[in-house]
């Protein structure tokens, strides 16, 4: 999402964007990122496919993941937490809240 990347860059973060699941997984492995913001409605597999891959790889299983989604089913949120995500946020979100959550997770991690 172009707007989100622009906002996060303005907050001083280095941002890599992926527009589908497969590219997202390869990017997470290649760039050694500190945190991942993941949408559940991603093309080519979906967010849970990415999450499953990330959590089953020794290189990426400790990276905190924030789910940012427009889906509002409670079961998806429960499933995401069971799979080990650090935070779950709903769209439309408050940009400042997201930035605060990212900082909190990076400081704690």
């Amino acid at each position, binding site marked *: 999402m172009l*707007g*989100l990347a622009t*906002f996060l860059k303005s907050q001083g973060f280095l941002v890599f964007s992926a527009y589908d699941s497969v590219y997202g997984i390869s990017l997470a492995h290649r760039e050694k990122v500190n945190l991942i913001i993941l949408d559940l409605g991603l093309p080519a597999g979906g967010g849970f496919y990415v999450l499953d891959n990330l959590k089953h790889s020794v290189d990426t299983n400790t990276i905190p993941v924030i789910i940012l989604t427009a*889906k509002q089913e409670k079961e998806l949120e429960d499933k995401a937490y069971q799979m080990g995500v650090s935070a779950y946020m709903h769209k439309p979100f408050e940009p400042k809240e997201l930035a605060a959550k990212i900082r909190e997770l990076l400081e704690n991690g």
Partner: protein
Amino acid sequence: MNKKVMKKKNNHNNAEKDLRLVLQELKDNPYRKFNLAFSLMSIIPLLVFFYILAAKLFTFHILVGDIGFMLLICILISICGFCLGYGIIRSALNKVLFYAAQAKHSDELKSIFVASVSHELKNPLSAVKTNLFNFLEGLLGQINDEQKKVVQLLYNITERMGRLVNELLDLHKIEAGMVGLKRELCNIADVLEKQAEELENMLSLKKIRLIKEILNRDLFVWADRDSLHQVVNNLLSNAIKYTPEGKSITLKAYFVDGYVRLEFIDNAQNIPPEKINKIFDKFQRLDETKEGTGLGLAIAKDIVESHKGKVWVEPLCREGNKFVVVLPCDLRSSKR
């Protein structure tokens, strides 16, 4: 886009497949039970027939004279009744099963609708909101004050649309019975305190004093905690919204005969008598200039009623209104 269409088509096909399965499943079992019951019941006239036969057999008058004629007529009527009754009940049962399957099908379509509306509306709203925020913060180049005003206005409208979508979906889910209430023992006193804390900003912004009269600190009810928070939040924020600056709001909570009674007493203008009955309807707003979607009270009412409670409003003598919520303490035995 094609994938989305295919996904929707698949969902539709799945729903149709389920419909057929449900029909088949319902068709098999109750018919078997029904046939068995009917066969057992048909033994009764047979027994009567054999009783009369046994009683009259030795006299050889069984089919002779008035009694014999009446007996034959009875047997004929029984056979006709059996065939006719079987046909009528079978077709009635068919209709019931068909409507039951249709209701299930429409529930599934509702779920698909909620999920897709949620996704299709919130995603673009989120993109618009984030980019407007970027404009406001000057991340996409500096904008002058005039432009900033317009962008701020658009940002506020987007926020309001986001709230409206959320509340519409909440209301739809409650009305369609799609919200699973997780009932647990909740202390309403704690819920009130937490919501008062959460709305502290709104209160201080309008310099409104919140008077809490919660005499009993153990106001336990068997209810869904999140839903209770939503009810209190909606009613309290509504009171804050309509109470003029510098005035006060009184919050009361106490036990009455196995019920917990909550009172939200504001200092707003009296609700006109013609609006008293409509105030909990969807999109009803007393003052169009106030921020809000007009769904908060409707959601509160639906939640309270789903807990077998009641909510109403009473205008006070001079100024102000009293919103009352009554919730039964123990709901464990009742089903929704």
